[in-house]
């Protein structure tokens, strides 16, 4: 009802407007399904004098549809954004982020933040977790018959990689290693500290994004994903 009223109010303006504007309004009304009977009469009268208005209408309609489709795709992300579930105590997070920030920047910070969020150890505990048979939560496969406690760091790392890949928990090691610091040693050698990056995977029930509000508090915001079907691949 209000659309009709608005159209009538605007009809008075229509005839006073510049020819181009009146034309644009008519095209717009037709596209938006707001054209009244008198609008259609005006449109037909105009089209009989200037048939190219049909092309303009088709073109505008096509462009409207294209923008509508693209926009629908672009804003689909909005459906995944829910309201925050409430403030959380972020003291520990800040301490951890501050500490790791000195070491490895964002990559390491993100890794530890992930560990904190998921609540599982990403690094093997010193001296093992009692029986010395776990590394990064994975059973030691006894590769080459070497127990983890006796293995050289490289062997232990290889064991972790193989067992992790077998269990589906480790995907791969990133080929590039990030140099954190290089310094000369008294004996003439060079000490290099670098970051090895391993991609792990884990299946979780609920994911949260941590974002800061304008007061600096960390807020956990649930992230919703549409379940993927096999056909989606």
């Amino acid at each position, binding site marked *: 009802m209000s659309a009709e009223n608005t159209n009538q109010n605007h009809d008075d*303006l229509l005839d006073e407007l510049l020819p181009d504007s009146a034309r644009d309004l008519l095209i717009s009304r037709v596209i*938006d399904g*707001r054209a009244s009977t008198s609008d259609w009469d005006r449109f037909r009268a105009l089209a009989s004098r200037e048939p190219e208005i049909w092309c303009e209408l088709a073109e505008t309609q096509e462009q409207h549809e294209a923008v509508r489709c693209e926009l629908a795709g672009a804003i689909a992300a909005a459906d995944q954004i829910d309201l*925050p579930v409430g403030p959380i105590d972020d003291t520990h997070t800040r301490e951890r982020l501050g500490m790791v920030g000195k070491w490895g920047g964002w990559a390491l910070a993100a890794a530890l933040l992930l560990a904190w969020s998921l609540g599982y150890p990403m690094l093997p505990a010193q001296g093992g977790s009692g029986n010395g048979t776990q590394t990064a939560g994975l059973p030691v496969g006894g590769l080459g018959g070497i127990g983890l406690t006796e293995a050289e760091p490289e062997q232990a790392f290889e064991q972790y990689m193989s067992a992790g890949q077998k269990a589906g928990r480790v995907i791969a090691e990133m080929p590039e290693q990030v140099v954190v610091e290089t310094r000369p040693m008294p004996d003439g050698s060079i000490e290099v500290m670098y970051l090895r990056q391993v991609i792990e995977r884990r299946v979780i029930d609920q994911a949260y994004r941590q*974002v800061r509000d304008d007061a600096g508090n960390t807020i956990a915001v649930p992230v919703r994903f549409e379940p993927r079907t096999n056909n989606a691949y």
Partner: protein
Amino acid sequence: MDDQRINEGVVSAAIKGDREALSLLWDDSRRWVAAIVLAYKPREADLEDLLQQIAMQLCRKISTLDDPRAFRGWLRTMAINLARAEGRKTTRRKRSMLRLVGMRGGAGSPDERVDELAQASEESRRIYHAARSLPAGYREPVLLRCLQSMSYEQISDAMGLPVTTIETRIARGRRMLREMLAQQKKHEESQHRAVLQGSATGGAP
């Protein structure tokens, strides 16, 4: 009209601290808020990050809203302010992360998948990007009108402008878009012709 009254009731409840009402409001608004953010945010800014910030501000500040009828305009202003503020920040966290792990532009990267999708609907994307480059006063109503749920009255309510002005802006915005695209096409054709002429004359500089 009924819809309006329901919304006002829901807004009032949300102002008083009703969490469910607030969720309902957000569910009802997030799509058009996203369209407004897209109309104002810089291209490199992340829509999801901005929407999360808006959702947070909505929670924190809804109690400060005096008039429930002003909700749409209030939320729109908040969205525009955040989108513009984002334009002043240059570091994008996601990009930094991808660069650090050396994935940016690599095989099978998200960028590549985006490229594939872009190729699939190159023409629509071109039109969409052209629409996003319209002057702000026109692109916002044009984009909002592309949301099926947004009527002229709702757009007018959000933008704080009379319906007649919204209608005129949408109509003119569409004309501008049509002309802009026609000009782009003309430019491309003349470039294409120049290339063809160049190759016909042996590619001499």
